[in-house]
């Protein structure tokens, strides 16, 4: 009787250990498959990012090369232009002076109109809503208000992602992007403003819009800089004065 019972208990124990084994095997299989899929996803993501980075680096290099070649072009044209003017100065002093006067006026005017690249101290504001899942977007209201604050603080040149702000510049929200000077721009937005850096920074950080941006948790960043370069307006001027008589 006792032996029988012991045998029964032993059998049951065996069944129990078998069940335990099955459970462990199942857990092992689940964990393994989970690890494999997670790993694959991570690998795919990282290789995708790697490819993207390589592609972007290549594009940046190409752009860099293009910029250099245009700089070289510009230099050669400038030297040719100088030679021509030097010739003119030697042959026809009077016309040279007249031409020089007009050219200088034009150069000054273009500088004032935002048609040349300028530099100076100022601040760079960065805004980014691309990483946010929630509906906290950089609205055009925010951007117009930021621009207004900067203008009030005496900014003399402003650009958003390289688009120079001129009298006709709009800042329009277009879904995930914005439109400035008819050009679509994407986050992160970089507002560069040249002026008195301290005044600009203080005005910005004390503005209502700044606290709104901070509360809305838009990825923000503001930096002072001794030298900010702001590119020229590159749009079509003719089109922007076509209705003015």
């Amino acid at each position: 009787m006792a032996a029988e019972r012991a045998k029964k208990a032993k059998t049951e124990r065996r069944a129990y250990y078998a069940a335990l084994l099955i459970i462990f095997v199942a857990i092992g299989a689940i964990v393994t498959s989970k690890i494999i899929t997670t790993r694959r996803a991570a690998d795919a993501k990282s290789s995708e990012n790697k490819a993207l980075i390589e592609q972007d680096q290549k594009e940046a290099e190409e752009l860099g090369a293009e910029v250099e070649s245009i700089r070289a072009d510009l230099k050669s044209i400038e030297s040719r232009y100088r030679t021509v003017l030097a010739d003119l100065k030697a042959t026809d002093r009077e016309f040279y002076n007249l031409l020089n006067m007009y050219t200088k006026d034009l150069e000054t005017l273009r500088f004032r109109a935002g048609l040349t690249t300028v530099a100076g101290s100022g601040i760079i504001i960065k805004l980014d809503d691309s990483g946010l899942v929630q509906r906290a977007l950089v609205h055009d209201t925010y951007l117009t208000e930021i621009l207004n604050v900067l203008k009030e603080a005496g900014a003399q040149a402003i650009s958003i992602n390289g688009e120079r702000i001129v009298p006709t510049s709009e800042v329009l929200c277009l879904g995930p992007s914005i439109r400035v000077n008819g050009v679509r721009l994407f986050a992160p937005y970089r507002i560069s403003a040249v002026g008195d850096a301290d005044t600009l920074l203080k005005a910005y950080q004390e503005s209502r819009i700044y606290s709104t941006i901070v509360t809305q948790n838009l990825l923000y960043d503001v930096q002072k800089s001794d030298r900010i370069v702001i590119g020229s307006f590159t749009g079509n001027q003719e089109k922007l004065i076509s209705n003015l008589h």
Partner: protein
Amino acid sequence: MTIDEKDFNKIADELASGEAGAQGTETSGTRAEIDRGKNANDQLRHILGAASGQVDGDGTPEQDNAADSANAADSADAADLANTAEDTVDHFDPAGAEAPDPSLVNWAKQMWRTPGTAYDSRNSTYIEPATVKKDGAARAVRTALITILCLAVGIVAALQFKTIASKTASEPDSEEQIKELLSTINNMHSELGSLEAERDELQNRLDLVEQSSQDEQIASLRDELNRVRTFAGLTSVKGRGIHIQLNFTERTNINSIQNRLLLLINELRASGAQAISINGIRILGMTEIRVVSDQYISVGARQLVAPYDIYAIGEASNLYSGITMGGSGIVFQIRDLSGTTCTWDIQENIIVNAASDEDIKTDLLTSNP
């Protein structure tokens, strides 16, 4: 698999009588009966062990979970054994047996709570040592094996997940890098645009000087001067466009009217306005508009008072639909504010004044070499 306190006590009592039976029969009973009693004791001890774990675990939910998993094996064991135990106990008749000695009950309760002691006493008293030892040793080995197995699986899984976690943790870096690169590319594009514009401009001038007559050169420069002057807002201009008049009072929320005024100007620009003025002040790129109080607004460092007349020259129909948007446009949003009035109409010969030279400040700007 819940064994509550009542059951626990019941089992304890049963155990006590079982023990009493075993004790009682020891003197006169057969070997088989002793074995039976031992068996019952042995199994009940397990039940008690599992049950006490269970009862403890019922205290708090977290402990409960922990206890559940920790005692899962024990509980499974206990359930099996409980059945066997019941069978076994049935062979004893508690009622028929002598009433259990209370001290014995206490001893039993005490004893079964501490398995180590029970083993010792049983080895010496009741059980053939070889069987128990073998059984105990095998069990210990199994338990150790399972523990090691669990530990190994746990460590391997943890290591794997950690590697992946560290891998994915490095992802934000590459994402950051991509963002940085895109920003660089963006800037390079705009630099490229500016450089190309400069090059084209200089090329034109060079062509002009090299190929045109002196009169043509001067005429061309004059044209360009006028064009840039107009573009910069330094000339008075005339054309078809839209006129908006708005007014607000002390009942109007200053921040609301501030936002909407900026949006109105922005909307006019987005709809193709080429020249805009407020109360005769030309709005340039760097002109601020600030509602200071319900009494006045500041535009280009000048104080303007109501009514505010905004003129914009451009494609009049575009301007009109831009600000009205079929009834939901910015002019309606302004009109809906309390204490405001807003009217708009298309006009044929709008004059927008020139900005003065002082309106464009460049003293903090240098030409980029």
